[in-house]
């Protein structure tokens, strides 16, 4: 099947097969949406690497094995390095038209696995690395990771202490600083954009990194049916952004003229319920600071204006 990456890649273009099925993820799991859709874009000639974490814990309990294509659990720190080995073997063994894709959570990516990821990007190994970011160590019971945002309550940054004091590493800029072949941010709230980016990644002769915001109802304190909506709101209120990095250029896929209000977005989530008005102001200040930087690289590098990515949900 040849795919024109310029056109939106929609539900009808996805493989009809389900490659992640019968897993034990919590109802409404955003990470499951990210894994399922990416595998449907990539198709059956795919080798999947998933580190210790939610997706391995819910998908690989012998004899209930939820990946219907080839998949393996890596060590927690070893998503990218195992992918590098898979990719090297694909070349060495002459396996044609195959993808090596990894799905690692925020902790496995930004904390324990960042070194191996950095090495893989440095070597330009042909891998697709997808970080499904649910903003804490959810599998072990919601502990703070390097991608837990400011103010968020976790079991190691309790509300009594004001939640997380750290501001969330920007993995997109970190991988872009390597001069990576392709990087993108995405959100399961904008699935069409996410699918397009995975589809783009499959054509890249080098390392691709996609960072997809994937809400966790259990850790975020939301209802299972809210996951997609909340992931969209995160983008709309400016706490997350949709961008790409390719050929050393940044590109902002969605340029909000004004942000949706922060407070309703934060307060509908249990993890932010303790925030005071001034806490929310602080979060807004950091958001604005970040956007000044984002707009700087976007405007410097892209004088032309581009269209927002087509949006599928709501």
């Amino acid at each position, binding site marked *: 099947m040849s795919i024109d990456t310029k056109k939106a890649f929609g539900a009808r273009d996805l493989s009809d097969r389900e490659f992640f099925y019968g897993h034990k993820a919590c109802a409404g799991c955003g990470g499951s949406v990210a894994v399922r859709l990416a595998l449907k874009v990539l198709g059956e000639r795919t080798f999947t690497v998933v580190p210790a974490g939610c997706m391995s814990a819910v998908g690989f309990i012998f004899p209930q*094995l939820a990946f219907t294509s080839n998949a*393996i659990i890596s060590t927690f720190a070893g998503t990218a390095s195992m992918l590098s*080995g898979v990719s090297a073997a694909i070349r060495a063994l002459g396996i044609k038209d195959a993808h090596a894709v990894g799905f690692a959570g925020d902790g496995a990516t930004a904390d324990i696995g960042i070194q191996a990821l950095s090495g893989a990007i440095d070597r330009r190994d042909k891998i697709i690395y997808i970080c499904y970011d649910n903003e804490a160590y959810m599998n072990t019971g919601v502990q703070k990771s390097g991608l837990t945002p400011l103010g968020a309550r976790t079991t190691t940054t309790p509300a009594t202490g004001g939640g997380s004091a750290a501001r969330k590493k920007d993995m997109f800029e970190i991988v872009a600083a390597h001069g990576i072949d392709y990087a993108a941010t995405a959100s399961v709230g904008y699935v069409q954009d996410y699918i397009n980016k995975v589809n783009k990644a499959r054509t890249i002769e080098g390392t691709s990194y996609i960072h997809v915001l994937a809400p966790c109802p259990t850790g975020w304190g939301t209802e299972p049916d809210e996951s997609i909506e909340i992931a969209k709101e995160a983008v709309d209120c400016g706490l997350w952004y949709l961008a790409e990095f390719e050929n050393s250029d940044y590109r902002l896929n969605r340029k909000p003229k004004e942000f949706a209000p922060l407070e309703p977005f934060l307060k509908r989530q249990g993890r932010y319920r303790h925030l005071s008005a001034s806490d929310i102001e602080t979060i807004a200040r950091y958001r604005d600071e970040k956007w000044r930087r984002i707009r700087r690289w976007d405007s410097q590098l892209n004088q032309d204006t581009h269209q927002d990515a087509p949006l599928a949900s709501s």
Partner: protein
Amino acid sequence: MSESARVFVSGNEAVALGVRLARPHVVAAYPITPQTVVVERLSDMVADGSLKTEYLHVESEHSALSACMGASVLGARTFTATSSQGLLYMAECLHYASGGRMPIVMMNANRSLALPWNIYNDQRDSLSLLDSGWLQVYVEDAQEALDMIIQGYAIAENPAVMTPIMVNLDGFVLTHTYELVDVPTAQSVDRFLPPYQTTNKLDLGAPKNMGFTATPADYTEFKYQQHRALLDSARVIEQTDEAYASAFGRSYGGLVQSYQAEDAELILVTLGSVNGTARVVVDGLRAEGRKVGLVRLRFLRPFPARELVALTRHARAVGVLEKNVSMGYEGTVFTHVNSAYSAETSAPHVLNFVAGLGGRDISRQDIISMFDQLASVDPTSERVRFVNLKLQII
């Protein structure tokens, strides 16, 4: 017998030559003293086109073994090399590779462990990982290093084994010493070592899920199965040694190698390169009419308990010489040797000689002294003895 070339190379270079002959699909390694020459020579071979492999210059030892695992599970033959701190840094992956039954071959340059920092030879690095489920062989010279890389693949990839193997060379003593080494032809190695074939892999034609979780309902059986494979590897190791002997004319005796042990009253059990010095000592003492001998444990996993007991049946005393101590108890090899005797109705006196830590020289005189101590051993004396301990300091 095939035409072979005789070259003057270091132990590290002999390993690299062995790796080239084994034709790995993927090599992933990270440099660490005293293993570096292996990764450098392999890089040269890739650059000059004499080694066709995907060479991954990884950013850590953890990634080196993790990448080998990723390639191995697609059915690729893989190689990595490390030492000391690097071996410990990849420790998690050691258990992972063996539990996943990935037949990876790894060279380890035996080196001390920090702290204090020290780059010289002892064997505390690999001995601390005996429980990681890998086969462990300790070679005595550069020739054996080359031969065991090639044999290593044959053993590890045997369907009855499917277990990774660590080929241990004493750091500097072997890795950096130049010796004459017979290098077999590529053709003859290709005949001895066919390409790796397995159904135990991720396969586009028959998709698999690997590296899964087993609950308490199954975990024990997976581990028992792995244990059985390591026990069964003893037979495969011996058969491989015999097949190698008929192909290349060199045999190492399988799990153990003995020297003048048949009628020996006093036997020293050794590991690795120190056996060369010990053999010279035995020759000298034999010339004086003393009944001394050696048993070199080539493999520590599987542990050759039966072979050791058989070879030391007539000995009055046995000394275990190891460059290692498990602090707070005794030498780990010593513990293993005693365990082997525990099932016997009669056993020799066994002494533990802890020597060569952090690269301290083990001289001929030291080894003569060990035999002297074995000759005068009595049941009340201290069993664990540090050789050359500077008592004036203590």
